[in-house]
């Protein structure tokens, strides 16, 4: 568990002081994958570095597994750090050492017996799928493979928490997908709490349970990924959600809405969970005297559940429409009438 209580971080730069973290309060529960999203300079990088005290805080408390890290002596802090694994955007591997030694490093620092190290490293390399690379050097590996080495290294000491600092930002989309898959596997198999920071909303969508949006050193919005995606509260939150699924209506739909006559009705139908796979619309056109025309829509997947909405135009009489809407209600499908407003 990670908890930030009233955390402030101020850098005293050459001119004005920079408020990197401003009154941060948030909590990551055990076993969660928590994502922090923000543009560069939002403070998310400072935030994640405070969790393992790579950066000290100016005020407030950082509590990890019940201990206030800001109050620990250096020796105790070093012990605690071994319970927190971290992976980095640029991997931060030792180029002068083999993959084996890189993964073994946290254990070497702990003075773990050689035969135990050997066993554990073999296990870790197996887990990340790089068993055949043990004797190679980092510069012989691709970016995705290097990040796998980083992950294996971070897991060496069986941490309870894994911090991911823009871990996929230097990788291509396909490699990103495979690394995220690995993170999900780590979370599931070892019940490791994961805190990740990213500027890619797709990463949040694909792996996170909860999300916080940061701007100017503040957490401006947070909640379950589902809530933030379906109903972002802030402009920045909306913009991030829009990067992975278009929630704004395209211009042509807006035009159609303005031009609609009395026999045309435009509705937004929300698809959440398994409902999304049932053929409600075709049922409606069969059961009622309505033409159904899908104007626009997007459906994405949040944690394995289809999620999205369709903008649908019903063509027919008002009575038939009422029946159709009742049918939707009976089946627990959320809908709302789309007016001329843009949302």
């Amino acid at each position: 568990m990670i908890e930030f209580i009233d955390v402030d971080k101020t850098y005293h730069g050459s001119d004005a002081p920079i408020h990197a973290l401003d009154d941060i309060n948030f909590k990551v529960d055990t076993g969660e994958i928590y994502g922090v999203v923000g543009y560069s300079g939002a403070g998310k990088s400072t935030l994640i570095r405070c969790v393992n005290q790579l950066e000290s805080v100016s005020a407030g408390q950082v509590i990890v597994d019940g201990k206030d890290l800001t109050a620990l002596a250096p020796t105790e802090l070093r012990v605690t750090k071994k319970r927190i694994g971290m992976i980095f955007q640029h991997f931060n591997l030792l180029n002068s050492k083999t993959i084996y030694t890189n993964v073994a490093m946290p254990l070497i620092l702990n003075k773990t017996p050689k035969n135990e190290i050997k066993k554990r490293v073999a296990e870790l390399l197996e887990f990340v799928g790089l068993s055949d690379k043990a004797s190679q050097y980092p510069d012989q590996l691709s970016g995705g493979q290097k990040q796998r080495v980083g992950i294996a290294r971070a897991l060496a000491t069986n941490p309870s928490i894994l911090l991911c600092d823009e871990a996929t930002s230097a990788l291509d989309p396909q490699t990103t997908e495979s690394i995220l898959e690995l993170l999900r596997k780590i979370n599931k198999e070892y019940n490791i709490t994961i805190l990740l920071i990213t500027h890619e909303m797709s990463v949040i969508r694909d792996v996170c349970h909860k999300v916080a949006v940061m701007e100017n050193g503040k957490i401006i919005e947070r909640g379950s990924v589902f809530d933030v995606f379906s109903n972002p509260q802030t402009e920045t939150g909306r913009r991030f959600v829009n990067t992975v699924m278009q929630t704004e209506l395209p211009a042509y739909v807006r035009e159609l809405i303005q031009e609609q006559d009395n026999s045309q009705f435009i509705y937004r139908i929300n698809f959440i969970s398994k409902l999304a796979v049932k053929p409600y619309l075709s049922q409606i056109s069969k059961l009622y005297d309505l033409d159904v025309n899908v104007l626009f829509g997007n459906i994405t997947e949040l944690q394995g559940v289809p999620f999205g909405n369709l903008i649908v135009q019903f063509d027919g009489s008002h009575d038939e429409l009422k029946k159709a809407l009742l049918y939707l209600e009976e089946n627990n499908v959320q809908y709302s009438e789309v007016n001329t407003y843009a949302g």
Partner: protein
Amino acid sequence: MLVSWSTIFEAFLETVQMVSISFIFSVILGLPLGILLYVTRPGQILENKIIFTILNGVINVFRSLPFIILLVAIIPVTKFIVGTSIGTEAAIVPMVFFAGPYISRLVESSLLEVDEGVLEAADAMGATPMQTIIKFVLPEAFGSLIVNFTISIIGLVGASAMAGTVGGGGIGDLAITYGYQRFDTVTMLITVVILIIMVQGLQSAGNKFARVVRRR
């Protein structure tokens, strides 16, 4: 030619002896100082303004002195350490005072080349400052250190030539006493060729070693 081949060979051995012994002592002096400069530098793992400022200043003082002046200026120190101010051993003392601070500066710059990210990883793993230096920084800087050590050993070959001033012997001494002062052009040429071969040999050996270390 006023000197025999055996004299030249003897002088060569003296140079090798002076350079290698003073190099070893210079590294013993310069490497820890360079590491100390690196770790106490503002923003580094054992940031310490006082130690850094003093060390930085002292090293700058030694680095400002041309070798020929250093050679004469520290004669009392030389006498105190080896008991005499004349001869090959006496030459080694000023050579160490010359190359030690030089090496510490080069070591510092080699270590500064190490990627910040590696230090961050070490910190995240809970490495002690000592572990950070030994397990992370020095291995990562090894190739660069070899290149810089090669530069300093070549600097010492040059300095050894001037050691003739205190009767240090060696190839340089031969070149000055015979080649320069007695107009023995042949000896001069031979010593020059030997020095060139030495420097070339050291440089390519250093490059090769660094390449092996860096694996490219």
